[in-house]
């Protein structure tokens, strides 16, 4: 998200995909799905950064973090269910991705982390 917000799109796409592949190696879902999810999510986020998140103010970063986390969970759910439709993997409940403490913690933690990174890099 940091790379996307700072317009390093190619790097953002590559590192997102790589992160997805690495996390997918030890998760319960099919290998490759996490990579695809992170890639699609990053692509959509890049589009949003170029249309909505035009500056790097504190408010924008917080908003972008919240949108980013929500978008990631949604993309995850949608991608897994699309592949399940093609008989790869199983269908998963929408609530499983949102109605839990993990989602809430991620929102808070991501926002704080993003603010910290931008602060350290002196971008805000």
């Amino acid at each position: 998200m940091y790379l996307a917000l700072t317009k390093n799109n190619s790097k953002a796409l590559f590192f997102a995909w790589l992160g997805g592949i690495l996390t997918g190696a030890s998760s319960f879902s099919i290998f490759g799905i996490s990579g695809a999810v992170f890639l699609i999510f990053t692509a959509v986020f890049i589009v949003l950064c170029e249309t909505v998140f035009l500056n790097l103010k504190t408010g924008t970063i917080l908003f972008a973090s919240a949108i980013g986390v929500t978008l990631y969970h949604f993309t995850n759910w949608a991608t897994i269910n699309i592949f399940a439709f093609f008989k790869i993997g199983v269908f998963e409940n929408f609530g499983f991705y949102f109605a839990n403490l993990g989602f809430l913690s991620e929102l808070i933690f991501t926002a704080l982390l993003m603010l910290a990174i931008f602060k350290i890099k002196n971008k805000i």
Partner: protein
Amino acid sequence: MRNNSLAIFFILLLTSLVFIFFNQSRAVLLLKQSVNEILKPIEIAFAKPKSWLSFWQSAFFNIKNIKESNNRLILENLNLNEKLAKLSQLEEENSLLREKLNLSQKSINTSLARVIGRDFQNNRSFLIDKGTNDGINAGMTVISKGETIVGRVIDASANTAKVQTILDAQSRIAAIAEKSKISGLVRGLGSDAIFDLIAKDKNPEAGELIISSGTDGIWPRGFVIGKIKEAKSKDNQVFNTADIELSADPRDFDSVFVILNSQ
């Protein structure tokens, strides 16, 4: 730049699709295994902080539940403590009743009484909650658990009675050492008692049990008084003496048995 990003996106997406659709192929499985092996040390390193974070996350969002659970547990604990106290009381009562039954089986008729007052200054006497209305009279022997002599009723009113302990300076019990059969007199000294009037040529062993001999016609026979601690013999004295350790410390019990009759 934009075309560059687009190209990268499609290449990486294609790669992911290959992995997904050929996820059971040997190459993909090998790749997954290799990545797993590389990441294992990092996973292990992150396991503990992850678990710590998970714990505090859960704690933070469950504060209300934790507080309610805590209050409930405090109340439960109080109730359990109360039950425990009652249980201890019942256990004590049970033990006393068993003792009473044991004495009844030996044809020793007793009355169970509670200690309701003590002479804290010198432990020479105490008050019990039974009196003449319960068949208690002056002169009756008072024992505690284990058929141990504690004292004698010296005064009885309608509902209470005063017991003089064997520590009292006026208390005298004809006694005998159980093993060596050495006879003597257990005499109260106020804070302690001694085994006195032991024949000059006799020396009881340390640890020997002292029991009432019944030869004085006042105290019943065969009840435990204490144990010999140390025998003493002095040239300028006519008799030997011995320090004794009482089996029943008058300060330690809450209930006693008054012997109504003994056969």
